[in-house]
């Protein structure tokens, strides 16, 4: 059983089709990367999986429950989501932001242990009493990831974790996501960076114009032919990993 499975999913925004006939699965213990050119539907796929954008046809199954039959709270406890938009309006204290990850458990939940645990894993405990706006972009990204981890959901969706981060922080965030997968979480991430995708993902879903062009291990899916056809690039290989090199 996949933690998250999309079968023949179709979804659209007002006026234009965004996903069509999408079949993809995200398994526990694996990092699955969703890649594709701009506008291919990567973020849309995550939004559909969350129920944020209702799908028009097809089936989305979350932990073997059909999306649409499960309650809002159950879904919030099952899927943690880290959107790309990382602006936090008010300069709240770091540990209070991380504690927002416990909201799905209701007011009586005492999630202090989960909050502390998530902060320790993302190495942000030392910022607990700081304000978010005092931290660097990389530190903020770790705090927001800790917020998502505090939910302790079996599925973690992350939209572009590497965007706007320096290389060291990109690697660090990918390692954190790997560690989550090693704990048994089904991790799904959208990525523009194909070398990060090929290095850190167990599975890759390639999207093109709202269709799935393929899903499989990086070595198979990110073939030279696929890179040329979907992305219009040629890549060099470094230890089997993709390094985008030239346009074709």
């Amino acid at each position, binding site marked *: 059983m996949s933690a998250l499975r999309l079968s023949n999913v179709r979804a659209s925004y007002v006026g234009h089709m965004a996903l069509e006939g999408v079949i993809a699965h995200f398994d*526990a*213990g*694996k*990092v699955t990367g969703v890649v594709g050119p701009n506008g291919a539907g990567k973020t849309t796929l995550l*939004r559909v999986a*969350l129920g*944020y954008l209702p799908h028009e046809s097809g089936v989305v199954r979350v*932990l073997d*429950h059909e999306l649409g039959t499960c309650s*809002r*709270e159950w*879904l*919030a*406890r099952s*899927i*943690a*989501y*880290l*959107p790309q*938009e990382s*602006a*936090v*309006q*008010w*300069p*709240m*204290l770091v*540990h*209070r*932001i991380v504690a*927002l990850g416990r*909201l*799905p458990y209701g007011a009586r939940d005492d999630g*202090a242990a989960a909050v*502390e*645990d998530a*902060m*320790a*894993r993302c*190495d942000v*405990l*030392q910022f*607990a*009493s700081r304000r978010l*706006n005092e931290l660097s972009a990389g530190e903020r990204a770790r705090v927001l990831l800790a*917020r998502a981890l505090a*939910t302790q*959901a*079996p599925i973690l969706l992350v939209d572009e974790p590497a965007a706007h981060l320096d290389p060291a922080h990109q690697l660090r965030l990918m*390692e954190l996501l*790997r*560690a989550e*997968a*090693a*704990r*048994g979480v089904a991790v799904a991430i959208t990525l523009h960076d194909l070398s990060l995708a090929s*290095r*850190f993902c*167990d599975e890759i879903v390639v999207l093109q114009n709202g269709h799935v062009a393929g899903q499989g*291990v990086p070595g198979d899916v990110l073939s030279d032919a696929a890179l040329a056809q979907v992305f219009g690039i040629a890549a060099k290989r470094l230890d089997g990993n993709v390094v985008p090199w030239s346009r074709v």
Partner: protein
Amino acid sequence: MDNYLQFQAHKKSPSPPSGGEGWGEGSSTAARDWPPHPNRADAVASAPLRGRGDKRSDNGTLITIALAVLALALAAISFVIGPAQIGISDLFGGLFAQHGTATVIAREIRLPRALLALVVGGALGASGAALQGLFRNPLADPGVTGVTSSAGFGAVVAMYFGFAALNPLILPASAIAGAVATSTILYFLSRAGAERTALILAGAAIASLATAMTALAMSLAPNPYAMSEMIRWMMGSLKDSTLADFELAVVPVVVGVAILRSAARSLDALTLGEEAAQSLGVNVHGVRRRVVIGVALATGAATAAAGAVSFVGLVVPHLLRPFYAYEPARLIIPSALGGAALVSAADIAVRLIAPDGQLLVGVMTAMIGAPFFVWLILRMRREAI
């Protein structure tokens, strides 16, 4: 629930990552083993998170109590200020006596005015805090977004076309209807994804339209009216408030503030953005609806009683925010208390500066609020707030 247990089972037997080298060891995954910098993390972890910066350990509660005391004290001062030369003890005695000049002054002039200042300020303060949280914008407030001017328009229509004479409930109902109309427009704008600045600009447009419509309604009204009445509705005034004004206002305001309070926790989640809030189980549309209804009730009823008092909802939440760790949820009730204190203080100042009653309380709040608004915009450009 069963799925959570399943997840726990996953944790005990994680499938090793396929990839290999860099992150390899991976299967002993008890959370404690993981932090990459054990020394640093452990040093901090020994001080428990529980209670640090928590509601109980920062002094938010104390400040809330202080605000309540301040509001009541200002209401008491407001009660003893007035043109009639009358002793404080006579005045308080008059509250409980059956008849006499002191009783009339205390019960029918001073008390309604003091109580109404609290109710109006409370409504505007809480509405401002909720709107700022909902729109994630420190510039939002019932005045800036046009909600008070629309409520004023509703009240003027009811008064000057004679509907209000039919039933005393029609005046607040009409003001609330005006507030509902504007906040519904704002609701649909924000639902359609309008930018935060666009919302404020739309609100400013609605505010000037509502003010123009108010002037038009007064010009066309069959009943004769005075220019001063018009200004009174547009600026807001507590002069000549009656106990009936207070009684009509207090119920919708209390209900409105309670509705806003009920949406508070979700406002915290909205700090992270709508998508993240939704993923945390927050019904974003439901929160918007609740805030819109709560603001319309509170602001509408307050405006029906006192006219369009501006900038209270802008200034108060902003001043109080740092004392509540910038958490929108905790800000609703303190902003209500702070608003009550501010309007009471402004109404005292108005009477001290111009004992003849020519200065309106809304003029006072605008004179404080408008420069504050500009300062806030300048500050927002310099730092992200």
